């Protein structure tokens, strides 16, 4: 069966959480938050969504007197993550780039990623984004909300991602499904 992209973990932050947890048996809340450089509330929100989807298991405990929370991928979560990565690899492979075959049964998918990085990540998407780029994307997101194409929740999440995006590629991913306006082009979109 052809692996499909998983909408639950497709969003950048969730994919980052899933990929970190794929490399871990268990990871503590603060570790995940600091590793991904995100806020407590963003991590809580995405972790809850992943838990609701059955992809993440949340364990609560204490270290000394301090309450702590640990995350781990469930079996379903690990499978979903592996399928998602395999789908990404398939997309890259179809474009003519060389990609190694998937290694089934292991949480580590970066055998493939390493090969992909060497060949594929040499495009304009790696160029550092500027404030002007982020502003254009934010403007596009607000237009998308007023057009009813995304919800306020999605706007909040995407705006957060926009202002933490480091490269043009990350910005492009945020508006990948809102193509009409083409805000990432060098010329501004025509105003109707």
């Amino acid at each position, binding site marked *: 069966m052809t692996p499909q*992209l998983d*909408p639950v973990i*497709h969003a*950048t932050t969730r*994919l*980052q959480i899933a*990929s*970190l947890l*794929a*490399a*871990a*048996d*268990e*990871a*503590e809340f*603060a*570790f995940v938050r*600091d*590793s*991904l450089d995100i806020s407590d509330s963003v991590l809580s929100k995405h972790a809850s969504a992943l838990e609701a989807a059955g992809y993440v298991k949340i364990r609560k*405990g204490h*270290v000394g007197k301090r309450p*702590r929370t640990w995350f781990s991928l469930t079996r379903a979560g690990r499978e979903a993550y592996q399928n998602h*990565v395999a789908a*990404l*690899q398939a*997309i*890259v492979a*179809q*474009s003519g*780039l060389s990609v*190694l075959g998937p290694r089934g049964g*292991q*949480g*580590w*998918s*970066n*055998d*493939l*990623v*390493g*090969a*992909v*990085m*060497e060949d*594929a*990540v040499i*495009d304009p*998407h790696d160029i550092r984004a500027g404030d002007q780029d982020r502003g254009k994307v934010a403007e596009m997101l607000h237009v998308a909300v007023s057009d009813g194409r995304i919800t306020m929740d999605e706007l909040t999440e995407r705006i957060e991602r926009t202002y933490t995006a480091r*490269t043009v*590629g*990350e910005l*492009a*991913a945020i508006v*990948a*499904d809102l193509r009409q306006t083409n805000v990432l082009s060098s010329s501004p979109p025509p105003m109707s």
Partner: protein
Amino acid sequence: MHITPEEAAQSLAQIHETQRRALRSAPPMFPSWYVVAVWVFVTGMQFFTEVTPLSALRIALPVLSIGLMAAVFKFVMDIRNQSMRPHPGVVDPWAWGGFAVWIVITAFGSVGVAVGLEALGVSYPRTVMGVTMTVVALITTPILTRWMSMRTVRRAETANR
């Protein structure tokens, strides 16, 4: 859902970077104090069987055993409460291989030291051996755990390139 190959490659690169960064900042594979605690137990046993009279051993044995059990319990809790435990699938098998070799070397080394000290006519050779090996463990275990973590990170960075 549709994404371009460039976006897919970008996502894959981001996954790689996230995992590499997480493994790099992960704590050591196991707390090094535990190995030292085991050697303290061994040294204590040598001391009470070699230096002190038998009556002292009757008291020392349960005390040392309880100490060792407490160390095992704390070890388990420390591992369970670690900020991040690498998944077995990402740990370099050579890291565990190196750990096994280190255990074999220190175990045989301790026997060699005890026999050597006895041959040299040193008083209480087993106790001296225990103290020596505790110091060896104290010095080498942190290096060993760092090396194991480094191998795992390096594996993440260079896997099948």
